[in-house]
């Protein structure tokens, strides 16, 4: 596409639908502005017009957070076995295969170890693009192994959540992942571990009702949908309109469930500052960044 055309179209928005569909241009769901994908990418997928944080993949978070994009994967080969031989409109095995091909990932979480501003940490990064970030045995086992690794090496643990909740296709097994991960977190906490949650859009159901709400420090990206039950279900049940901003990060902060809302651009520094402050990895104190009056 010629440069002159690109500039012009940013202003007048005369794009044909095909271009949007091909993903060269993206429409911001918040301000409706059509933005050029490349520009958005350079801005960590934060809308250049209204700072809306687009949903991003686990690989995007790796690029955002890990020094030089480097990491060592934990439990890299754990993958689903379709424990219930589950068949609905789509059968589960096919669904997994499709998701794997689409995302290039084995399941809805990536677990890894690596450096964030020079401080070694264990991360579990969920990915909503893999069957809605749903949590089954694989997600449970991978996060569980990640927690064990953090406990063994006395490293801080960060879980970035993006999940519709438990994976129905695995029945009670998926439900029990909530207990499995929570119990591992309890043990890690008793060993003096530091667990930081980063809640991103959207995080709901069993994920919220377990590890998302258990961080020593709970951070959230701006305007992320965070809740237990779906807004539609609540509305039907109570027969009332829901308040403005219901189940968004800012709502949860006001209601006392989030420590701090952190923009994606500040996330890396915020995490490494917290590691240092809570005595992880930082031998020198001056690694904490200066007071920011813009808070």
């Amino acid at each position, binding site marked *: 596409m010629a440069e002159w055309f690109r500039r012009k179209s940013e202003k007048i928005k005369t794009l044909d639908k095909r271009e949007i569909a091909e993903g060269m241009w993206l429409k911001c769901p918040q301000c409706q502005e059509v933005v050029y994908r490349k520009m958005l990418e350079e801005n960590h997928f934060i809308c250049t017009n209204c700072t809306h944080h687009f949903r991003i993949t686990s690989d995007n978070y790796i690029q955002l957070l890990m020094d030089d994009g480097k990491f060592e994967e934990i439990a890299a080969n754990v993958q689903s076995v379709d424990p219930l031989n589950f068949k609905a409109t789509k059968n589960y095995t096919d669904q997994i295969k499709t998701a794997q091909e689409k995302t290039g990932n084995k399941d809805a979480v990536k677990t890894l170890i690596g450096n964030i501003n020079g401080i070694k940490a264990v991360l579990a990064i969920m990915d909503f693009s893999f069957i809605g970030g749903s949590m089954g045995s694989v997600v449970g086992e991978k996060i569980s192994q990640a927690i064990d690794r953090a406990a063994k090496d006395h490293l801080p643990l960060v879980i970035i959540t993006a999940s519709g909740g438990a994976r129905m296709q695995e029945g009670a097994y998926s439900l029990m992942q909530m207990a499995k991960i929570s119990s591992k977190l309890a043990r890690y*906490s008793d060993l*003096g571990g*530091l667990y930081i949650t980063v809640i991103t859009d959207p995080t709901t159901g069993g994920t919220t009702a377990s590890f998302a*709400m258990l961080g*020593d*420090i709970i951070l959230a990206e701006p305007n992320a949908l965070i809740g237990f039950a779906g807004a539609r279900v609540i509305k039907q049940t109570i027969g009332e309109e829901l308040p403005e901003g219901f189940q968004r990060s800012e709502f949860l*902060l*006001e*209601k*006392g*469930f*989030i*420590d*701090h809302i952190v923009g994606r651009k500040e996330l890396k520094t*915020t995490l490494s*500052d*917290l590691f240092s*402050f*809570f*005595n992880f990895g930082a031998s020198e*104190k001056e690694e*904490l*960044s*200066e*007071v920011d*009056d813009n*808070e």
Partner: protein
Amino acid sequence: MSNYILEFEAPLREIEDKIDSMKSTGIKTGMDVTEAVQKLEEQLTNEKKILYENLSRWERVQLARHPKRPYSSDYISRITDYWFELHGDRYFSDDPAMICGIAVIDNLKLMIISQEKGRGTKSKLFRNFGMARPEGYRKALRLMKLAEKYKIPVLTLIDTPGAYPGLGAEERGQAEAIARNLFEMSKLRVPIINIVIGEGASGGALGIGVGDKMLCFENTWYSVISPEGCATILFRDASRAPEAADSMMVTAKDLKYFGIADTILPEPLGGTHQDYNQSADTLKNAILDSFLELNKIDPDKRIENRIEKYDKMGKWSDG
């Protein structure tokens, strides 16, 4: 606006006005007023010294509530090298009357728990005039526990006209929230320093006020009830508050005399609001010195000392 807005500061305001009119006369007439102005300024300095060195308790209470007095947030922004606010009680709400967060001052890491009154109508309403709800005390406790887990000492800054007396606050257990803090703070395994920077009204203040050392700025008050409250109940006349302030002995000096406060922090002449930076420096140095001392003590011993400190409080005869 004049720096001297309280009723008892009227003599200072008069001299200030004289200085202003002398200066404008000079400008209008071209007369040399340097000497006259200098004389008046000397008079002001003398007058200030006399006035502020002989403050009554009630006058100190007014300074403690002075609208320009620095609040917790004013100190935090001046004394910390790193600051990250932490919100919420994880049950019901985030209470803006209580500002909490992690901080670094020089090389000292701290959990700061502080009460904030807010300045300007909007901010005052948001902060609920510094009157915390149960959520505020529960947020404070949650974060003190977090500090304990990572061996981070706790600093509390006290400045409240009281815990919020509201319907919802009662329903959600205002009394339980305060009581729980007294209990948990008594045995928290990290050092705790409590500093009164303005008003210390009763249980609302004590709810974040149990610790190893208590420091009070010079012009603060801390007691079981406000002088007005006491006057209303015991003298059946709120206007007798000055008398009540004397009867209850509510100032920093009184608390030092009682053995409740350990140290009185000096204020710039006329109150902390006369010089924010100087007051912040005083606070910062006091914090650094106090923790240096407390950090040397073994945690078990520190808790024992803390409980014994409170055990000594009160006056009684036995047989």
